[in-house]
Structures are given as structure tokens and as C-alpha cells.
């Protein structure tokens, strides 16, 4: 599954030693982001089993490297557009774990105080411009944000994350063409986790690589990377962002990855062939990255410290959410319109 690009990058690192292109500080950030996502998502699942996470939720367990790699390459003003599987991308931009878990638990301390829920995480101050639950809807929206940057001469990039299944809806193709003809500073990131909800993507797609094999239709480069290797993701992100900032238009990057849990909530994922999950767990992004840190001489103590630190943050966030009240009902009728209210008549 891992692409040539991913392997080449790793071997280059070995030669490069600790003075490589990524560097220790960035590597520690990449590791930390992945652990934050892993711990928070695992906690979300545990809380769901305790009936403390209501509604639905779509976890990114196993897909942490994509979120971490892109977020670590982003500038603070860059914008993220996510799907309902958006906890990871939201956390990766620095949104506090408590705000995310609070929203999942439908508490007053939630990111949107319970008005959006798990599928719509949004944090404007962190550049998380929404999580969208209608497949494909946010690709054109990301184009629009990129159009604003182009028009105003702003240097930010709009980054749009979506799944393999999303490549078969019209909005994907409309957005890719639109972005290409308008040369917009937008980066489309397909997280190919091999499945839609329950159906393997290969069963319903005319090409092997649902995103990359369509790139040529829009005059774009065919890019497939190892989405479980945060370094490979980070490098691909840097290249695409530099291209976008230089005014050379959009990129489409297909990241090969795998979700360890089911599609949503308690999906037991019985549709997987035997052994598939185990095979992918050998390529667990966090496992890969611990080895990577070791290769570059980063000590176990530093890794252990990050692990402990993150666990403490997630524990504290959990306790804060458990103690938090439900949303106060006076927000029910706020923010339908820009005047703050919901009046549709005089």
C-alpha cells in the first residue's frame, strides 16, 4: 500500500541523520499531534461506550498522520475544511481537547455549545472553517475561500479534507475543475481509507486510485502518498502549499490510510476481509513514527513525556466535560440570522 514516494523519503531520512529536512522540533510536533488525536479519539470511543457521547461520531483512529502532517505544515492563517470525520483535523489545528470532547458529549463547554455536534466541528479562530456532513459540499466552499485569498492577495491556503468515497460525487469534480481553471490556492486532500461507509471503494469506482487517477482530467499531477507516514504527508503538504502560495494553483493529494475503527459509532466493521485490520495495524502511524523518532536519535524519555503529557490533558478534559452542564436552552434561538436572533417576520 505504501507508495514509492513514502519509502524514498524514509531512506533519504536515514542518510540525512538528524539534520534532515524536517528537523527534531517539527518531528516532535508531528508526533505530539498524532498522539493527541489518538488519545482524544480513543477517549471519545470509550465515552461513547459509557453512553456519554451522544449522537453519532466518526473517528480517525489509524488516520492520524494525515491530519498531523498537514496541520504541521500549515501557517496559522491557513484554513481547514473538514468532513464529519473531522475531530482529527480540528484537534490538529490546536483546538483544545476539552472543547472537542465537550461538543461530542453535548455539553455547554463544547466548541459550539452543542449546537453543531460531532459532525460540524468549527473553530474560526483556529482556521477550522467548518466540518461538513454532506459528502463533497465543502470542496467548492474551500474553492471560495481560496478565491478570496487570490482576489485580496492574501497568502493563506485553503486545505480541504475528504474521503475516497467523496471522489464519486459531482461536487468533487466541479470543484477540481473550478479550482484548476481559476488557479486557486486550494489543496484537496483525499484520505483513502479504502471504504465508504461499508462498501470498499474499489467496488464502486472505475479507477484504482479514486482521487489521483482523476487528477489528469483537471490538468493536475497524479499524487499518491503513504498517508500513515507523517513525514511523507508533511513533505507533500509543504510542496502543495508552496505551489499554492506561489500562485500556481491547486493540488490533489491522495493519502493511502486505513481507519482502525468502524465507519461511525459502534460499526463493528464486519465487512473487512480477515487480517486486513491486523496488516494495517502493523503500519500504525504512531508506531511508524515512534520508530522514526528513534532513527533520528530522539530519546524514549522525550517520547514518554509527550505520551504522559497528552494523556493528562485528555484525562483533565474528560473530567471537565463530565462536570460541565448541558447547554443552556437560551442559545436555542440565537444565531439563526446575523442579528443574533431568529426573527423571520415583524
Amino acid at each position, binding site marked *: 500500500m505504501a507508495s514509492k514516494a513514502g519509502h524514498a523519503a524514509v531512506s533519504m531520512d536515514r542518510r540525512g541523520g538528524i539534520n534532515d529536512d524536517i528537523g527534531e522540533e517539527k518531528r516532535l510536533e508531528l508526533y505530539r499531534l498524532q498522539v493527541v488525536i489518538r488519545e482524544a479519539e480513543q477517549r471519545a470511543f470509550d465515552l461513547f461506550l459509557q453512553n456519554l457521547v451522544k449522537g453519532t461520531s466518526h473517528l480517525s483512529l489509524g488516520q492520524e498522520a494525515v491530519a498531523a502532517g498537514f496541520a504541521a505544515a500549515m501557517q496559522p492563517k491557513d484554513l481547514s475544511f473538514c468532513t464529519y470525520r473531522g475531530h482529527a483535523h480540528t484537534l490538529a489545528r490546536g483546538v483544545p481537547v476539552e472543547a472537542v470532547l465537550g461538543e461530542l458529549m453535548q455539553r455547554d463547554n463544547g466548541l459550539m455549545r452543542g449546537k453543531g455536534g460531532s459532525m460540524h466541528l468549527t473553530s474560526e479562530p483556529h482556521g477550522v472553517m467548518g466540518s461538513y456532513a454532506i459528502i463533497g459540499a465543502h470542496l467548492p466552499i474551500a*474553492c471560495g475561500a481560496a478565491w478570496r485569498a487570490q482576489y485580496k492577495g492574501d497568502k493563506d491556503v485553503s486545505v480541504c479534507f475528504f474521503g475516497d468515497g467523496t471522489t464519486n460525487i459531482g461536487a468533487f469534480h466541479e470543484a477540481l475543475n473550478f479550482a484548476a481553471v481559476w488557479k486557486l490556492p486550494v489543496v484537496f486532500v483525499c484520505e483513502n481509507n479504502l471504504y465508504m461507509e461499508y462498501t470498499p471503494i474499489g467496488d464502486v469506482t472505475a479507477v484504482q486510485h479514486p482521487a489521483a487517477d482523476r487528477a489528469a482530467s483537471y490538468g493536475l499531477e497524479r499524487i499518491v502518498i503513504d498517508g500513515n507516514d507523517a513525514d511523507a504527508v508533511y513533505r507533500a503538504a509543504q510542496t502543495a502549499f508552496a505551489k499554492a502560495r506561489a500562485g500556481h494553483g491547486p493540488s490533489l493529494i491522495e493519502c493511502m490510510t486505513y481507519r482502525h475503527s468502524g465507519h461511525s459509532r459502534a460499526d463493528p466493521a464486519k465487512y473487512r476481509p480477515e487480517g486486513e485490520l491486523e496488516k494495517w495495524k502493523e503500519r500504525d502511524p504512531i508506531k511508524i513514527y515512534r520508530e522514526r523518532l528513534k532513527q533520528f536519535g530522539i530519546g524514549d524519555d522525550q517520547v514518554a513525556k509527550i505520551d504522559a503529557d497528552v494523556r493528562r490533558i485528555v484525562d483533565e478534559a474528560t473530567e471537565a466535560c463530565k462536570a460541565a452542564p448541558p447547554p443552556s436552552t437560551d*442559545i436555542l434561538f440565537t444565531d439563526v440570522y446575523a442579528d443574533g436572533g431568529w426573527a423571520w417576520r415583524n
Partner: protein
Amino acid sequence: MAELTYRDAVARGIAQEMARDPDVVFLGEDVAKAGGVFKATVGLYDQFGPLRVRDTPISEQAILGAAMGAAMTGLKPIAEIMFSDFFAVCFDYIANEFPKSRYMSNGQTKCPLVVRTGNGAGSRFGAQHSQSVENWCMMIPGLKVVAPSTPTDVIGLMAAAVRDPDPVIFFEHKSLYPMKGEVPDGEIVDALGTARTVRTGTDATILALALMVPRALEAAERLKVEHGVDCEVVDVRSLVPLDTQTILGSVGRTHRLFTVEENPRLCGWGAEIVSIVADEAFYDLDGPPVRITTPHIPLPAADILEDMVLPTVERIVERVQRSLGA
């Protein structure tokens, strides 16, 4: 004062706002170099250039999605959807994205944009290019919906829509494009959420929208001359926000209510207004409210057939006269 067509008023309204605010941008299919398929945006490309007036591919989802992303991050886009019937291929943005983002994000995001579209029948285009779909939008919390009937209102409501911080759906009636009207010189800025009493009268209130306004006015004249019935005509103009005070006030004086709606009958805008009046002004009414609508059928293309189903002056006169027993 100058005489202007409704069509030219569209371009003037957009130009007024683009000249005022550099964040106002305009996109759509064939709108820039070609000036729009209805020639309603001729001159904008020359005046404001290719960065602000942009032709798009035939990608209605991309048009509306891009407008939204631009609006969320600081621009004030005006997007054209050529025919309102095409809302059906980009309805996700109209129904799920524009109107819900602010609420779902607990007020973090904004969506100040205008979607303008050619609406309505009379062109003999048949069932997929003639519909009146204001009610598709009226039912969605978070949207604002206007439908002007005169050139001056086109300019003034366009200005109000562009300056409004919420997503506004702006219905232009295709059959009104050639209609002329006197338009004041200088800047024109109107207010959303305001109906206008375009004829005062004492015997009945007739509510109308867009192309139905001139028909209702002509019917009122004939009712007066031929039957001695004095009707008040209210141009509803804005479905959301809805100026219920003007409507209830008029019904309170005339004690009878008629709506003239181009949409097919079920769930047309008049149904909501009749229900409000029934709720809040029941004892003001001297008789049942009457809805004059297109029947619940797809629109036919042939002129003779289309003319039979849209509310006409004759039908309005006949229906009002029959109900009032005049």
C-alpha cells in the same frame, strides 16, 4: 428620473454596489463577457474587470459553494444561477450550507452573499425553465428571500441584499425583464422585510409578488371600473423577513384577503400568509381567504396552455368579484 427596464436595473443595482464596495464580486455562467443569457449584466465586465466579474463553468454547486467560501472569509459575492429551476442541482448550498453554518457553529461563521436567479413563467420555456420556486427557499430557516416587481425595487432591494449580513435569495422575474419604469437618479437603497401597498382600497386586500403585481394592479383597476369594488394591492416583495404588519394592517381595514401566486398551489407562499392571517386576524375577516394560484401541475410550454394556468387579470377579477358577490 430616468426610464429603465427591469433588466437594466439589475446591472445598475449590481454596479452601484460594486462601485461602493471592492469586496463585492460577481460570478456565474455566461455573466461576464456575454453579459448574461438575459442580458441583465451587460457592461459589468467592462466596468469592473475580469477579477470582479467572472465567468464560471457550468457547475452550479461550484458557483454556490465558491460564493459561500468567499462570503465566509470576507467577500460579498453575488452569484447568478441562470434559471431558478437549476436550484434543484445545487440545493445543498441553499438548503444545508448557507443557512445552517452560522447556527451550527454557534455564531462563529458568516455568509453574506446574494444568489440572484431568473424565476417564473411567461417565456414558453416549459416545465424546467419556468417555475416559480420562491417557496422552496422560503421554508428554510436562515435564508432571506426577496422578489422585486419594478426596476426601482430591483436596484433598491439588490443594494439591501448585498449589504445584508445574511444569505439572500434574489428572485428576478424573467417576464419582467423588458418592463420599463421610472427610476430615481443616484443611489437607491431599500430595506428587506418590507411589503409595499401599491394601491389603496377599502373592499379587499390582494397580495401579489413579482409578475403577479402588475396583474393584480390591472385587475384592481378593472374591479373598480367594472364592478365598483375597491381593492388594496400589496406587493409582498420580501417573503423572508415577512412584513406581516403591513399585511395584517391591510386585512384589518378591508376584511377580505386574496393572494395571487404564480407557484403551484401546494405550500405556495400564500398558504403561509393565509395561515398567519387565520391565526392572528380571524375576526377581522368577513369571508374566507382565497388563494389564486397556478394549479398543481408542471408548467406546459405552449403559449395557449401556459396562459391558461398562470393567474391572469381575468381570473383575478372573476375570482375576487365572485367571492365578494359584487
